[in-house]
């Protein structure tokens, strides 16, 4: 019987290796799989390339992973956020690389990676510094830049409901990058607020089909990043 459920956060992230490329869902704190990130901190993998829209805030979650010097490169659209000090300090000290990508291009590159599209043309960033060194091409009189699909070794994603096949639903704007990141990683690791019986999710409302998911762990009461930050907590506690 197919059952993608695992019994602990540690088991969920156990195979992540040094040098891995990891996609991490979330837009700010919404959709950020904070418990999985903390498990990854405990697990020890380093020299990571992380693909995520932001760089975390305070000293928990993604910011804590960066603070532990485990991330050598960030691929993101908006590395500055409220209460984000860890990334800016390391960046200014030259201790972390940044690949800055327009948000829509980031989303499309991830989707392309998952969909077997090696490269596509987009109008975003043409005539800006972010298109520098990239191939530009005119279609029907408009200039576009060639962007490549991104794949990852792992994705860490937060969702709402999951079943044993890995079918997922999300909550509100926590959906954001989760569905496309599940498609673009060799191994997708998902924390669900609740794991339900196969068939409990209406086939019409599944957002992420199980084929894109490898491991599921139930985290019934996920922390809110902003609360941890307001309490000035640092991970590891």
């Amino acid at each position, binding site marked *: 019987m197919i059952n993608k459920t695992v019994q602990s956060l540690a088991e969920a992230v156990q195979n992540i290796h040094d040098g891995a490329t990891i996609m991490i869902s979330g837009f700010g704190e*919404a959709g950020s799989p904070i418990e999985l990130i903390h498990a990854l901190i405990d697990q020890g993998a380093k020299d990571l390339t992380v693909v995520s829209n932001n760089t975390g805030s305070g000293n928990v979650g993604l910011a804590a992973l960066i603070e532990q010097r485990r991330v050598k490169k960030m691929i993101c659209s908006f590395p500055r956020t409220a209460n984000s000090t860890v990334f800016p300090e390391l960046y200014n000290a030259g201790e972390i690389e940044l690949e800055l990508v327009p948000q829509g291009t980031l989303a*499309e590159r*991830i989707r392309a990676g998952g969909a077997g599209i090696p490269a596509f043309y987009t109008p975003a960033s043409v005539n800006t510094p972010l298109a520098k060194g990239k191939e530009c091409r005119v279609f029907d009189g408009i200039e576009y830049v060639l962007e490549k699909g991104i794949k990852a070794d792992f994705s860490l994603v937060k969702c709402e409901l999951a079943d044993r096949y890995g079918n997922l639903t999300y909550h509100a704007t926590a959906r954001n990058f989760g569905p496309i990141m599940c498609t673009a990683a060799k191994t997708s690791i998902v924390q669900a607020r609740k794991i339900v019986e196969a068939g409990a999710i209406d086939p019409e409302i599944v957002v992420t089909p199980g084929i894109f998911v490898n491991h599921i762990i139930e985290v019934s009461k996920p922390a809110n990043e902003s609360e941890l930050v307001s309490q000035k907590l640092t991970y590891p506690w």
Partner: protein
Amino acid sequence: MVEKQINIGWSKTEMAQNVAMDIPDGSYVNLGIGMPEMVADFVPEGRELIYQTENGLLGMGAVPMAGQEDPELINAGKKPVTTIPGACFFHHADSFTMIRGGHIDVCVLGAMQISKNGDLANWSTGAANAIPAVGGAMDLVAGVKRILVITQHNTKDGKAKILNQCSYPLTGKGVVESIYTNLAIIDVKDEGLYVRKLGPNVDFEYLQKHTEAKLYQ
């Protein structure tokens, strides 16, 4: 002296009102972070606008009541919002299908600099020590049908923001349709910058003096 007179130009709320007046009934609208968000408070009666936020919500409603916030129901500025009946959620690739695909009618953005041919710079000063952060701005200006800019006419230290050429890195080239400042409403046309309306107690000469690029009436 004219500069010291109190009621020169529009207030921020009046600026937001000016923008809101130019958005037709039924439009799909994306509002940038900051001053653009104010536009939603001044939609003329009888018009229904639908707000898209690029983090995955179409049909964004008002700010929630205190205590009703959901940290996973937020806007692009990462502030709590609500949904209207008839809203829907979607992932980021679908969100930018709306944006890049030309389905959003109007985007209202702030600006650091605008050039006479409608170039916009609003994401980076290019300073060596600044952490660059672009978000969805480049996708919005490349994809949305009409880009309206709302901004103070001059920088805090009195420098022109409407220039012959932007010195900051561009967000997009030739993308701005109209500029709504505290001093005037200016349309970007092929032939140059045309003043459509002057703010209260602003005359053309005064406006030109505070603008690097040549203005037309």
